[in-house]
């Protein structure tokens, strides 16, 4: 056994795998604990050797960026080790995600709660952007909530660092409902502003409790956006008609945000409107957003420990580990975001393709055993 193998075995011994909590196409997620301290962790085992290209792109990205980013509002990568042909990521264990909280109709959000979540999201995002990393898949599902209420940005499977001048980036990123118009128009040169649009959509979703811009297809997404915000003119967004996939989807008038968000304060709508400006250069940056008057106005943002919690989250605190059986569906209080592993062709994934990817996963599992 050479030195590398020895070190790897030593690492592996630090962690204990308990039970499986979720499975995706390219990874299986286990709940586990640190042997020495008993601290709860999640182990994401990436299946290698099932794809002929070697390691999946998202796994590489996840390791690459999570290693560099250490921040209270970004999920922590504790360790990486390999077992046989698999790569294992040891991540912080998180109880729930923002999507489950939004969907839990029994919870009532105060304006201060939303402010708190937004502040934490912007802080995490500012840290990414400060280090020139674009997340490119922000959605409530990827904002995990720790047991102490802290919000953590997770799933860096689509992240990349800001491109050098003249290098193209793919435009097939970000879940459709949270995708900014420049990506829908097929723009290959974009910036950190794409993440800000997603955060704006999440902000609106927190207030509405339903997705703000739920398009059914890429084309419909553009229509949905323009129906909500009006079709941009050339003054509002210079040059957008020259983008590769530009199509005219019709003229829609601009409706004031006030019509939809009747109860929101002026500051709230001001920040929201700055997050969803069509012209990416005019969109507010994460850092400027943190200094926006919205966050300083009363009421103060809720302390994380007092934020609304789902019933599963409260129960999880007292639940002994052996009560969770093997195949918990991701909606059942398992660490959904961690458990939700990306299918290999994630870039081309459609929203309706969930079942499909699950079927693939089962099939692959079968051949492997």
């Amino acid at each position, binding site marked *: 056994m050479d030195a590398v193998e020895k070190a790897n075995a030593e690492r592996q011994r630090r962690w204990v795998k308990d039970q499986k909590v979720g499975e995706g196409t390219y990874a299986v997620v286990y709940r586990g604990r640190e042997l020495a301290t008993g601290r709860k962790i999640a182990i994401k085992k990436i299946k*290698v050797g099932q794809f002929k290209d070697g390691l999946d792109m998202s796994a590489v990205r996840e390791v690459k960026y999570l290693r560099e980013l250490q921040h209270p509002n970004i999920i922590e990568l504790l360790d990486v080790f390999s077992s046989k042909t698999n790569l294992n990521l040891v991540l912080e264990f998180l109880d729930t995600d923002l999507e489950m909280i939004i969907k839990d109709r029994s919870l009532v959000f105060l304006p201060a709660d939303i402010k708190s979540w937004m502040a934490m999201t912007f802080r995490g995002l500012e840290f990414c952007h400060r280090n020139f990393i674009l997340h490119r898949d922000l959605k409530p599902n990827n904002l995990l909530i720790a047991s102490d209420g802290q919000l953590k940005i997770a799933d860096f499977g689509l992240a990349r660092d800001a491109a050098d001048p003249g290098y193209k980036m793919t435009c097939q990123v970000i879940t459709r409902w949270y995708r900014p118009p420049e990506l829908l128009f097929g723009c290959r*040169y974009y910036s950190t502003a794409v993440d800000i649009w997603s955060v704006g959509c999440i902000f609106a979703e927190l207030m509405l409790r339903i997705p703000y811009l739920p398009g059914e297809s890429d084309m419909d997404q553009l229509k949905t956006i323009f129906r909500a915000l009006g079709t941009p003119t050339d003054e509002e967004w210079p040059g957008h008609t020259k983008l590769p996939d530009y199509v005219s989807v019709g003229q829609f008038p601009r409706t004031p945000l006030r019509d939809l968000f009747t109860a929101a304060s002026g500051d709230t709508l001001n920040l929201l409107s700055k997050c969803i400006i069509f012209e990416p250069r005019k969109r507010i940056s994460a850092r400027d957003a943190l200094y926006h008057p919205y966050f300083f106005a009363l009421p103060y943002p809720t302390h994380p420990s007092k934020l609304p919690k789902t019933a599963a989250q409260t129960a999880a605190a007292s639940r002994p580990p052996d009560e969770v059986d093997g195949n918990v569906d991701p909606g059942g209080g398992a660490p959904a975001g961690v458990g939700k592993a990306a299918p290999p062709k994630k870039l081309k994934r459609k929203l309706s393709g969930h079942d499909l990817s699950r079927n693939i996963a089962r099939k692959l599992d079968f051949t492997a055993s």
Partner: protein
Amino acid sequence: MSTNRTNAASWLRGTTIRKGTTTPATRSHTPQTQTSSSIVFSGGVKDGSGRTSEYFSMDDQCPVCKSDRYLNPKLRLLVSSCYHKMCESCIDRLYTLGPAPCPVCGKTLKKMTFIPQTFEDLVVEKEVAIRRKLAKEFNKRREDFPDLRSYDDYLQEVEDITFNLINEIDIPETQARIAAYRKENAAFIELNQQREEAYVQALKEQEEAERRERQLRAEEIRRAEEEERDAREGERRALIDNLENSDADAARLVAQARAEALKRAAARTAAAHQAVFAQQQETMRLRAAQSAVVVPDQPHVPLLDGYYAYEDLCGLRSSYFDPASDAVRRDKEGIMRAGGYRVEEAWERALRYAVAGLDITPPLGEVSMPLPITSRVDADVAMASV
């Protein structure tokens, strides 16, 4: 539904059916019931406020003497303890001289056991009465049981007893079960009754407090309105006095007065807003007080680290000699511009990567790793992907 059919039929016949509407005439409360008897019949199923809503229909007919509302407009049907109906005059006639058998089923009845009818269906009447009676004693709650299973067993038993009583199965045995339960759980029953009373009391107090609050608020508003009216009146009088006594330009005086009034109104609205805000704060505090651990909300701090607190030792120039980005910069109107891509960001990144950490003195002696991950990870990845 048979009720519907009878209703429809009687509608066709032209009689008035008042049952089913919510006007007081359909369900008269006990005190207003027209009665021909000297005895006040009470009991029956009471509603939340302790009143008995009596069932009443234009089609009522006494099953014993066949008298109906046409013959006797004051007809009032009462229910016996064996759940058979008869009118007050029949009860007077049959039971004034003491206990006598029921004309329908033969069970011995006393005059005092007759009760007013609440529900149209007597089966329902009976079930509700039995359930009410049982619930007084079978009043255990989930908290009184160690686990859900035993609570479910208890509920099952209560349901069994209820079913037996309603359908008159094994009455003596069931009564024995009830008695045994009563003996066993006397303390529990007592305790839960007290709890129930306390809860009802608390509800009442809360209601009372809310009512007082509302009254106070209404008074407050009225007072504010009165003040405002007085103020306006005063202003107008002052203006008229001013116009009378002063020899300044009338139009200017009016304009001045109007401006002042506007200012005062603004101040009043601000005060009102302040009050609303204070009330909101109060609600928030209440909610905070409800949670077990009180953590005060803190004012927003934009960034939790001092990353931007240091002054950069080098600055970004407005332009660089950078052939690689020429294409991007020349593209003023086109695709690169519209996507929001900035060359300046790329320059800044290059600069930061070049100078980051230059002023940090290298650690001496043993190297401590800030992260548990070392560069060996790369080796793992590389190995795994081979």
